[in-house]
């Protein structure tokens, strides 16, 4: 045992905080948050109730007092999506089942191409706030035989839109920080960065839409801004992995139809050149969260987030699209060569227990 392992062994089994302490800490935070005037002012045209900070706690309490099962749960208690959305989702589900999934033959790869834009922000040396939209694109190649090398290509990032004049340089620098080169990682079972095999645990998800939605409410309870919003978030996060088989995709669409507040928010939403129907939910966090589905094929085009309030710190206004992910899944014969377990030149921390990679030569941009 070397000195680090000895040090790590100490307190490995230190207990988790008491429920009391966790509750006290959370109350203190929620009180502090409540004492702070909301920075955003609700847009009068799109007035939404501001989250009170209590509902997540209330949801937590619900978990403590109700026994959820997949059969008996929250789904359907308080209605569901509006009628037009529910019907369009049902049609998309039917189309999804009719469209067969691509078959990955021996030696081939399932390629998941993800084009994503996220909103970032920071402060410059003069304490001025800035915000930007940054790219976060990647391609994941999953081999037919999962014990072969999976390959993950991560593209360099860039800021594609900067809010406010004079912050272009800061924004580019912030977006690129440590992600300024293309990186190729490869690992059997998708265990990139010396991590555990990649497993989306799709087999855990019930295929019956009602049970599926109960399952989603159960595993997300107590998190996020609202139970319905978190369920919607869980489903869109699952869909955007790009690896969801048609039958489960159909069930997820039907489950979305059971979430209150979901409506058709755009009949013809275009993302990355593909057009589909946007199903969205206005969340109390001040954002409209959408998934976009091609109605003809039932394929997921992607997801999108629209800000509903004007920011006060930065010039980002209601109606601004502040993030999206477009996902395309295909079958290909080859994956790029090169790369290592930990990307370009990074090495696993050799058996020191952190299970992470490090690249000692990676420059920092501060």
């Amino acid at each position, binding site marked *: 045992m070397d000195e680090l392992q000895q040090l790590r062994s100490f307190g490995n089994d230190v207990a988790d905080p008491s429920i009391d302490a966790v509750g006290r800490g959370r109350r203190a935070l929620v009180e502090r948050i409540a004492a702070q005037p*909301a920075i955003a002012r609700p847009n009068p045209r799109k007035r939404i109730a501001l989250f009170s900070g209590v509902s997540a706690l209330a949801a937590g309490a619900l978990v403590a007092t109700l026994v959820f099962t997949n059969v008996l749960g929250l789904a359907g208690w308080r209605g569901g999506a509006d009628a037009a959305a529910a019907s369009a989702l049902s049609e998309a589900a039917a189309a999804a089942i009719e469209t067969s999934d691509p078959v990955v033959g021996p030696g081939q790869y399932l390629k998941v191409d993800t084009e994503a834009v996220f909103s970032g922000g920071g402060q410059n040396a003069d304490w001025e706030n800035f915000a930007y939209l940054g790219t976060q694109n990647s391609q994941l190649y999953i081999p037919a035989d999962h014990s072969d090398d999976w390959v993950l290509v991560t593209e360099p990032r860039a800021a594609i839109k900067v809010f406010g004049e004079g912050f272009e340089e800061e924004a580019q620098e912030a977006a690129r920080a440590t992600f300024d080169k293309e990186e190729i990682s490869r690992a059997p079972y998708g265990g990139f960065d010396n991590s555990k095999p990649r497993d989306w645990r799709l087999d855990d998800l019930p295929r019956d839409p009602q049970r599926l939605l109960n399952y989603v409410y159960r595993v997300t309870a107590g998190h996020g801004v609202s139970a319905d919003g978190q369920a919607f978030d869980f489903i869109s*996060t699952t869909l955007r992995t790009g690896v969801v088989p048609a039958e489960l995709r159909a069930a997820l669409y039907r489950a979305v139809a059971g979430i209150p507040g979901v409506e058709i928010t755009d009949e013809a939403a275009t993302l990355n050149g593909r057009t589909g129907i946007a199903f969205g939910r206005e969340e109390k966090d001040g954002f409209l969260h959408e998934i976009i589905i091609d109605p003809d094929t039932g394929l997921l085009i992607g997801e999108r987030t629209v800000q509903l309030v004007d920011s006060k710190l930065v010039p980002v206004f209601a109606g601004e699209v502040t993030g999206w992910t477009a996902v395309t899944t295909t079958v290909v014969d080859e994956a790029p060569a090169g790369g290592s377990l930990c990307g370009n030149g990074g090495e696993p921390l050799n058996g020191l227990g952190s299970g992470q990679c490090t690249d000692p030569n990676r420059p920092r941009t501060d």
Partner: protein
Amino acid sequence: MTSDNEIIRRSWDNPAVFAEMYDRHATTVYRYAARRAGIDTADDIMAETFLVAFERRNRFDSAFESALPWLLGIATVLIRKNRGAEARFLRAMVASGPPATVVENHDDRLDATLAIRDMAGAIRRLPARDRDALLLYAWGDLDYEGVALALNIPVGTVRSRLNRARRVLRLSAGITPAKEVDRGRTSTAPIIR
């Protein structure tokens, strides 16, 4: 799941969403603090870390997806401010070994228990900056880059601080260095900051 940086970014305008950071990371912050300063102090460090983080949420560098290095960095500053508690905890460990509740009653652990008493003394005497880097790495389970983010220092500096701290620990625990030959003086002298 929405990433930490997205949530923090959203909390600029909608402070309430920040509570999600607590739900995600409070336990990890607590465990780190408990290992450094004992469970009595850890409750307060956990709570205070998120109050400070909330006040500084628009200074979080949102190019990084995980907020954990940043949060553990805040916890580290709070532990340092509360140096008395950490020093008392380490002194108690030197005197009587780690608290019985945190070490399994297991033969293999006996050696470790003895060694940790020696180590606790060495950790106490480390310069604060080396101690922070070492314990974020070993107990905060961050990688080099995470430690660099937490302490807001370059990765190269993390590496040299860790090398120095590990050498001191090795000597204190009586572990013979495998290859490394100790060059120059080892800083076992107490440095008060």
